[in-house]
Structures are given as structure tokens and as C-alpha cells.
């Protein structure tokens, strides 16, 4: 009891452990597992990441006008849903060209707002994917 | 893991003869949906302070069968029995429905036949 008493008193003269959060930003660890980032130029469209992703947060869906990449034969486009992603980095481990085509950053995803339309537009992509399979 | 087959009529006697409460630890009651409207019920035990000694008693039953209760032998079995009732929709003596699932949720989610 007396040690707590003394501790409470000495804590008065220490800097608090908590920070003024929105004003003082949190330091992000370098190795923090954050958002997945994609380099279109290096991608060989093997679709290994899509198969490896447990929640299905990466989808390759055909587009009308195929992007300028000669390896992309079927006209696929990479889509990534950061709100579905669990940041497990299975995709990066599955990728044959990690660090160039697919890598993990330490950025955190921002909270989704209504404008992001994460649900409806994503469901649309999932439907499209099902049709092409 | 040692698997021993029992029938529903004898399971109570077998467990009564086998279970010593200071020697065996009752793990749980497990259900497993099989083909042709059948399911397997498993009573899983492990031995205290022994390396990897698990004993499984199992019985293959139809969904309409009534599973005898072992709550009077092992009081803590009640919670697994009620889970089995909720998840598979089988009947276990003295165990009611409704501890895990609400009335308006999907019923018997793990049973192979009702969906």
C-alpha cells in the first residue's frame, strides 16, 4: 500500500506515459506490417498473390483497354482492398518478384468513409471476377 | 491418440468404468458430420501429467438418435453437450437448445443434412 502511495506521489513529477495523440503523431515502427503496395511495371500477372490471399483482398479483373504491359495478356487490372486486407503478407511471400511487383509498407490504412465505397464497388469487382472464372 | 468405438447403449457404462476423476481429464464432446445423414460423436479424454495420452471414444449415429447424457459422471460435460445440441440439432438427454445460438440465427450450422 505504501509503495503505491509513494509511486502515485513520485508520478506527479514524471512526464506522463500517454501522448497528445492527434497533435503528437505516433512513431511508426519501420518493420510494422502495413498496406500492401504494387508495382505495375514489374508484375508478370502470375496471379499467385491473388490465390494466396486469405481474405481475398487482391483481385485481378479484366478491363476493356489493357494497360501498357506486354506481360499482361488477358488484360487484367490489379485491385486491392485495404479494408479487407489482414496485412499477413502471404501475397508478398507468394510473389515471384517481391520488392518490385508487390511489397509491404509500414503505412496504416485510414478509416474508410462513405466516399470510399469500399463495399459496393468491391462487391461489383467480386462479381466480375466470378463471371470470368 | 487412441480411438475406441462404442455404441450409444454402452457408452455410459464404458465411460463410467473408464473415467477416474483424478486421473483423466475430460476435454470435450465433439461432433462430426458424415455422409448419408449420419454423424460421429466423440468423447475426448486426456491423462493428467502424461505425455500425449488422448483417448477418444466415438460412436456413429443417425441424427434422430438420442445421445445419453454423462453429466452425472462428469459435471463439466453439460457445456459441451449443449453446444452439440445447438450445432448439430441432435438430442442429448437433459440438454436444451439455445445456449449458443439465438432463435433467429441459422440453426444447426454444422450438421450435414439440415442445410
Amino acid at each position, binding site marked *: *500500500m*505504501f509503495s*503505491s*502511495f509513494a509511486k*502515485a*506521489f513520485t*508520478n*506527479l513529477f*514524471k512526464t*506522463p*506515459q*500517454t*501522448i*497528445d495523440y492527434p497533435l503528437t503523431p505516433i512513431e511508426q515502427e519501420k518493420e510494422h506490417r502495413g498496406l500492401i503496395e504494387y508495382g505495375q511495371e514489374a508484375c508478370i500477372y502470375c496471379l499467385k498473390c491473388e490465390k494466396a490471399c486469405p481474405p481475398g483482398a487482391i483481385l485481378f479483373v479484366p478491363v476493356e483497354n489493357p494497360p501498357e504491359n506486354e506481360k499482361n495478356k488477358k488484360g487484367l487490372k490489379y485491385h486491392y482492398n485495404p479494408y479487407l486486407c489482414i496485412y499477413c503478407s502471404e501475397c508478398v511471400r507468394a510473389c515471384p518478384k517481391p520488392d518490385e511487383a508487390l511489397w509491404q509498407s509500414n503505412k496504416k490504412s485510414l478509416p474508410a468513409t462513405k466516399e470510399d465505397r469500399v463495399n459496393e464497388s468491391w462487391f461489383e469487382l467480386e462479381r466480375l471476377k466470378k463471371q470470368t472464372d | 491418440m487412441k480411438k475406441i468405438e462404442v455404441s450409444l447403449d454402452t457408452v455410459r457404462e464404458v465411460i463410467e468404468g473408464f473415467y477416474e476423476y483424478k486421473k483423466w481429464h475430460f476435454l470435450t464432446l465433439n461432433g462430426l458430420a458424415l455422409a448419408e445423414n449420419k454423424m460421429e460423436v466423440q468423447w475426448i479424454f486426456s491423462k493428467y501429467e502424461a505425455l500425449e495420452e488422448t483417448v477418444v471414444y466415438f460412436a456413429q449415429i443417425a441424427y434422430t438418435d438420442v445421445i445419453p447424457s454423462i453429466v452425472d459422471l462428469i459435471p463439466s460435460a453439460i457445456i459441451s453437450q449443449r453446444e452439440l445440441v445447438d450445432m448439430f440439432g441432435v438430442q442429448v438427454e437433459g440438454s436444451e437448445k439455445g445456449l449458443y445460438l439465438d432463435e433467429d440465427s441459422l440453426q444447426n450450422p454444422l450438421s450435414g443434412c439440415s442445410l
Partner: protein
Amino acid sequence: MIETLLILFAPLIGGLMYGFERKLRARMQNRQGPPLLQPFYDMWKLIDKQAFIVNPYHTILGVMHFITLWIVVAFIILGQNLLYVIFLHLLSTIFIILAGFSVKSIYSHIGSNRELQAMIAYEPILIMVAVGFFMKHGSFDISVIRENGALLASLFLLFLAFLMVMQIKLKKSPFDATEAHQEIVGGVEVEFSGVFFEFIYMAKWLEYAFVYLLLMLFAGNNIFLGIGLFLGVFLLVNLVDNATARIKMKHLLRIVLAIGLTLGMWNLIGLAYV
């Protein structure tokens, strides 16, 4: 004039004290804590909430609790009879207890029960404090007490007993079983909502004013001793709050009655014969 202003702003002063205390407590726990004016922001937010009346008696009794407490504080500031003050304060507590019993919530009932038991524990000590002042000055008038010298030394045992009462009245560990938000979710105040909860919230601030004003009486006309006493006890109350867990009602009754009454009795006997 000053007295009128003090009376008018008594709840606000109590609120500031409460805000400062939250800050102090946070620092004792190594946290930043809320801003100083957080209690007033809370009040502002509560205005927006829907005020739900469980039953009219409950609400009226809650408001009465607040008004009576304000009158109690006014009486102390005006220097009225100390005994009247203590009994009027008792009345205000009874209002909130009745309010607690008037609804169906079981938490509210248990809270009222505990409030009653706590009253049994601390009320005799408050009366003994008043008797102690009477034996020294021959009068219960607070104005008389304020005009004479400090009685901290001669009423020291009663002062110690009074410290225990403070812990109960301010709802601080170890004697905060009446509120006990992990057990009974705040006890008597659980069914108040919206603007009516504001009265209960302000009553809490007034309770601060009441308790610390009574404490200052021990310093008599010595202002510096009064301020020192206030600051020291303020710190002590919070340090004890940060060093103890909440004890149960039966332990509270036993400890406060056994130790508090004994200390008070010895002090009174001492005053009578020495």
C-alpha cells in the same frame, strides 16, 4: 456581496475542483488526463442527450437533492448553525436515497442500500465534530467558529476521523462502495439521464464544496492554515485513492465505526476532562 457570489458560483467552484482532481489523479497514474474544464464539457454534452423520466418522483427527488445541497453550502458560507447544516445535509442524502428506491433498477436499489449503510457509518462522526466545536466555543454557529482560532490541535483525533468521512463523501477508494461503478454501475445515479443527470452531477460538485468547507472549519480564523489544510488534504485524499482498492460495505462499516467512533469519543472525553 462576496458571500452571495460564492453561493451563486459554488457549483462552478466545485466543478473546477473536480476537473483539477481528475487532472491530478491522471498524473498520479502516469497519464495526461482530461482538460481542466472537462466536467463542464460533460455538462454541455449532457444537454443534448434525451432526458428520460423514469417516474416523476424519482426526477423530483433528484432535483431536490441538488437544491438542498446548495442550501447546505449556502448555510455554511453564511455562517449558520453547524448542527442545522449537518442535519440538512442528511436530508439531502435521504432525498437521493429515496430517489434510488423509487425506481425498479436493482443497481439503484443496491446503491440506495449502500448509501444508507454509509450514512450510518459517517453521520455520528459528523455530529461528534459539531459537538467538539461546541465544547470548545459553547456555540454551534459557524460564524463563531470562523472568528476564533484554529482548533486543529485540540480536535486532532476528530480531524482524523473526519478524513475517513471525506473519503466516503467524495466517493474515493477505499470507501467508495456506495458508487462502485464496476459492481453497481454508479448506484443511485444509474437511472438519471440527460438534463436531470446534470443535477446529480452538479450535486457531486457541491458535495466537494461542502466537504472542503467543513474541513476549513478546523483552521478557524487562520487563513493560511486553512489553505494549507485544503491543499494537503486534497493531495492526501487522492494519494490514498491511488493506493487502495475499494473495500466492501461490511468492512467499511466496521472500520469507520470502530476507528472513527473511537477516535471521536477519545477526543470528546479529552475535551471534557482536560
